[in-house]
Structure formats: structure tokens, C-alpha cells
């Protein structure tokens, strides 16, 4: 691809359990203001050189308790000064949309904003409403129960163990100790995880993420402009997404075909042929601990059923060959929807060399992954580079 798109500014809130003191718009402004300052850009209706021309927002109406939830935050996102589009899936797809807007030639610079205040809603009710209302919703399924069905199937098919899942929770919450924006970092042991309350067997309390509120903003720009706005642009080198079929019984839940497809397309764009070798750090959606392992396999970072061995061998720790979720991951506390851009935020910090105590020396290629729906229903994959 001849033309490139760079991320020139990034801001994320500290993730917190219950931000009752701010409304959704105020939460959004906490990250929009700093990225506008960082990039030195503004909102006007003049369409001048330093103007944000387009804004892509990403929020989920049921979490916001509001139809067209982008309207609720509009006066803070600058939608009254620019073209505005809203994405309803994981926010990684909002970056995908902004990237495509720039490559289409319509815009040189796009602001992307995502927020979720999980504390405003009820997770189980919201997730239940995502299921087919005739064949699945009456059963009382939510994404947690669906995740447990997937975890059990994954364990059975590939021999992955509860201890290996727990190791992911230990690693990521431990990484969170080194991330100032992490919500619930913890120094814990595998035993702590296995002894924590069994919520939906085989998933324990510490195998899941806490309820979280937060927002992220980023500014994307066409190559020439990106280089003017920052001396550390991070380039989006590949991106794709794909869906699974909806009815859970249609799928082998130990497989993740949509992720395999999305990853293959993203790697092809980026010219990556050996992902495990060419990628320096990976940020992978880990709402439930087993998912980091399963998605690693879907992403082609190892063979099927091999991710358990990699966590055992410490390959995915900071200091290992392929650090995964140096940020602390969703397990340390990221809201749904926001999670995908949180993966990119960490990737950008790592590739800029600004990840502080958790910096992976020399990291230059990153992988960010985001997912939406039950058992990884929708999968989005992005690769990034500082070169």
C-alpha cells in the first residue's frame, strides 16, 4: 500500500470501577482534550489545515442506556464541527473505519473517540439482549455463560488446563502493576486464582475482568500530515475483521475461524509471513483468561493447542520472546468496547518507547486484537509499526 496512516496522538483515562462523578460526555472529554493538545489541532467549521475533519465515535447504546449513544457525547466529541460516524462494535473497528476514511482520500486527519461506563448498566441483561430472541435469548445466556461453554470445550479438545488459564490472570494482573492506568493490578498466585470464587464453571472470579469505566481518544492522519504533527508516528500496517456465525451450536467453540481469517488478511496487508517471529508485542482481548490463549492460537502466534505450553514456559511474560498484554490487559480492568483501542494505546506506547517500567526494549512491530459478542463472535486484528 503506497499511502500510510499514522496514529499521532493517544490518550486514555485511568480505568476505574465507578465514575459516578462524570457523565459519558465528560468522560470522553478527559481524553479528547489531551489528544487535541498533543497534536495541536482544533475543531472549527473552516476546514483549515489544523482542523479535525472527521470524528469516528465508538460506544454501545445498551451500555449508555441511550439510543444513538454518540448523540449523548456529541458536544464533547466535536461532531458539530466535523463529519461524524459511529461504530457499535469493539473500538478497534472504529480505528479501522478512520483508517479507511483517510485512505479513501476524503480526509487527512480523523479523531477517534470511544467510551463505556459499565457501571451505568447491567452486564448480564445487556449481553443477553445480543442473542437471537427466539432460539437463544429465552435460555438466559449472557457472554459470561457463553465464555464458560467455550472455555470448557477448549479445555476438552486441546487439553488446556485451569492452571494455565490462571497463569494468564496472574501474568496480566501482574503486568498491570506497572501500568499507571490499570484499574485492578494485583500480585497474585495461580492458587489465588483457583481458590477465588467459581462464578461460571470453569471460570473463577479472578479469571474475569472487573466492571470498568473509561474512555480513549486517538488522532489518525495521512502520512505527510502525521509526520508534521509528531516525530513519533505509529503506522497502521494491516487491519481486518470477520464474523462467526451467530448460533453458538453451529460453531466448534474450541476453534476461532473468524479470527484466523481476520488475522490472515491483516498479516497479508502488513507483509507479515511469520507472525510469532515478526511481532514484538501482542495486546490480545482477555476479558476471560482462557481467551488470551485461544486467541493467540487463532492469531497464528502458535499452533492449535500450544498456547498453554507457551504460558507455562513464560514466553508471553515481559522479558519473554513474545510479551502478551504488557498493559495488564482487560483482566486488569478495561471496559468493553473501549478494550480494543486500549490494546492499541498500549501498542503505541510500546512502539514509541514510552511504556515505562513495562517497556519491551526495541519493540517495533505490535499486534492489537479486539473482539465483540459471545465467544469472540466478531474479531478484529490490527498490526502496527514504528518504522
Amino acid at each position, binding site marked *: 500500500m503506497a499511502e500510510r496512516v499514522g496514529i499521532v496522538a493517544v490518550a486514555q483515562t485511568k480505568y476505574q470501577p465507578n465514575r459516578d462523578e462524570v457523565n459519558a460526555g465528560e468522560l470522553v472529554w478527559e481524553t479528547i482534550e489531551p489528544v487535541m493538545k498533543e497534536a495541536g489541532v482544533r475543531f472549527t467549521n473552516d476546514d483549515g489545515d489544523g482542523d479535525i475533519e472527521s470524528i469516528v465515535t465508538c460506544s454501545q447504546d445498551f451500555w449508555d442506556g441511550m439510543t444513538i449513544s454518540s448523540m449523548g457525547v456529541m458536544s464533547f466529541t466535536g461532531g458539530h464541527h466535523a463529519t461524524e460516524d459511529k461504530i457499535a462494535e469493539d473500538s478497534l473497528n472504529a480505528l479501522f473505519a478512520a483508517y479507511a476514511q483517510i485512505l479513501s482520500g476524503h480526509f487527512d486527519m480523523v479523531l477517534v473517540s470511544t467510551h463505556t461506563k459499565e457501571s451505568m448498566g447491567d452486564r448480564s441483561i445487556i449481553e443477553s439482549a445480543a442473542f437471537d430472541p427466539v432460539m437463544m435469548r*429465552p*435460555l*438466559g445466556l449472557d457472554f459470561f455463560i457463553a465464555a464458560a461453554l*467455550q472455555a470448557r470445550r477448549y479445555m476438552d479438545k486441546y487439553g488446556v488446563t485451569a492452571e494455565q488459564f490462571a497463569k494468564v490472570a496472574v501474568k496480566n494482573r501482574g503486568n498491570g502493576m506497572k501500568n499507571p492506568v490499570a484499574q485492578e493490578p494485583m500480585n497474585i498466585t495461580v492458587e489465588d486464582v483457583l481458590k477465588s470464587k467459581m462464578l461460571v*464453571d470453569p471460570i473463577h472470579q479472578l479469571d474475569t475482568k472487573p466492571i470498568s469505566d473509561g474512555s480513549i481518544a486517538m488522532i489518525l492522519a495521512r502520512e505527510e500530515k502525521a509526520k508534521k504533527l509528531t516525530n513519533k508516528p505509529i503506522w497502521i500496517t494491516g487491519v481486518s475483521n470477520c464474523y462467526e456465525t451467530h448460533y453458538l451450536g453451529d460453531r466448534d467453540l474450541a476453534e476461532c475461524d473468524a479470527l484466523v481469517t481476520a488475522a490472515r488478511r491483516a498479516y497479508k496487508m502488513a507483509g507479515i509471513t511469520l507472525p510469532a517471529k515478526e511481532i514484538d508485542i501482542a495486546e490480545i482481548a482477555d476479558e476471560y483468561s482462557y481467551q488470551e490463549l485461544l486467541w493467540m492460537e487463532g492469531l497464528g502466534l502458535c499452533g492449535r493447542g500450544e498456547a498453554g505450553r507457551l504460558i507455562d514456559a513464560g514466553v508471553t511474560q515481559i522479558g519473554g520472546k513474545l510479551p502478551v498484554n504488557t498493559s495488564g490487559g482487560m483482566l486488569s480492568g478495561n471496559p468493553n468496547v473501549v478494550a480494543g483501542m486500549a490494546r492499541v494505546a498500549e501498542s503505541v506506547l510500546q512502539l514509541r518507547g514510552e511504556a515505562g517500567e513495562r517497556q519491551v526494549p526495541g519493540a517495533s512491530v505490535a499486534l492489537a486484537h479486539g473482539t465483540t459478542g459471545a465467544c469472540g463472535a466478531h474479531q478484529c486484528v490490527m498490526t502496527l509499526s514504528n518504522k
Partner: protein
Amino acid sequence: MTERTVEILEDSDRFVFPWQLAIPNTYPAGVVGSKFLIELRDNKKIKGIKCPECNQVYVPPRSTCKYCFGELSELVDVSDKGTLVTYAVSYEPTPVQPVEGTPVIYGIVKLDGADTGFVHMLGEVDPKQLEIGMRVKAVFKTKKKRVASILDIKYFKPLKI
């Protein structure tokens, strides 16, 4: 899972407003979906639908094949017995669960004669005895209580051999 306490609000000058949206909807089950539900209600039969092109039997029936996108119309009987593919035991009560109390056990069952798994609940079983690959059988509600719903099947229970 976050505890929402009234105290936070009383102790500060911040307000949050509780609001429960009630949104009435009706969802069409579709032609083949409706036939499936009628068979559950009237005959305690589980119907699948066959794609002759791909030789696949889908349960519950849907009108389009996910492989060839051909229109499907050939409803076939599948067994009320099958093999457990996976399960989950929910110990935390949720506001959306259709039955009283916990644990609520969920499972995906590959019914004999079907090529897809069937998502439902499991009952009359101790969670400790659950095992992938175990044989299970549908338990229907009594005729009076069957209303053409997926819940006309109460749950699947282990098949004693």
C-alpha cells in the same frame, strides 16, 4: 459485579438517576422457525432442516444454508437424544435466567441426526457428574405448559443406559 450503594450519592453532591427502559418488541420466528416451535409444542419433536446440496442438518432450522446460501425447506426429524459437546455451570444468579435458583447448567448437545449443536440447559444432574461426551435426552414440559417456545424443552438430562 460492582456494588452500587446509595451512600456514595448521599455523601456527596453528585446525583445519578436510575432509569429502566422498557422497550416492547415482537420478534418473528420465521417460517421454518415457527414450524420447529409448533413441533415442540404439539408433538414433543425436535425438527432440523437439511441442505441437500451440502448434506448438512441444522438444528434449530433456519431458512438459509450457511455454506451454500441455498434456500432450505426440507424439515427432518432429529432425535431427542444426543451427546454433550460442552457445558457451563452458572453459580451466580443472573437477572435473565429463566429458572429459579442456582446453579443453572448450560450445555451444547449434538442431537443424533443433526450436524450442529443444540444450545440448552441441563437438569437432573449433579454438576460433578457432568462429562463431555455423556449421552443426554430432552425433557419436555407438560402439554399444558408448552407454548411453542424453546423453553418447551425443560432441559436435557443424562440418559441412563
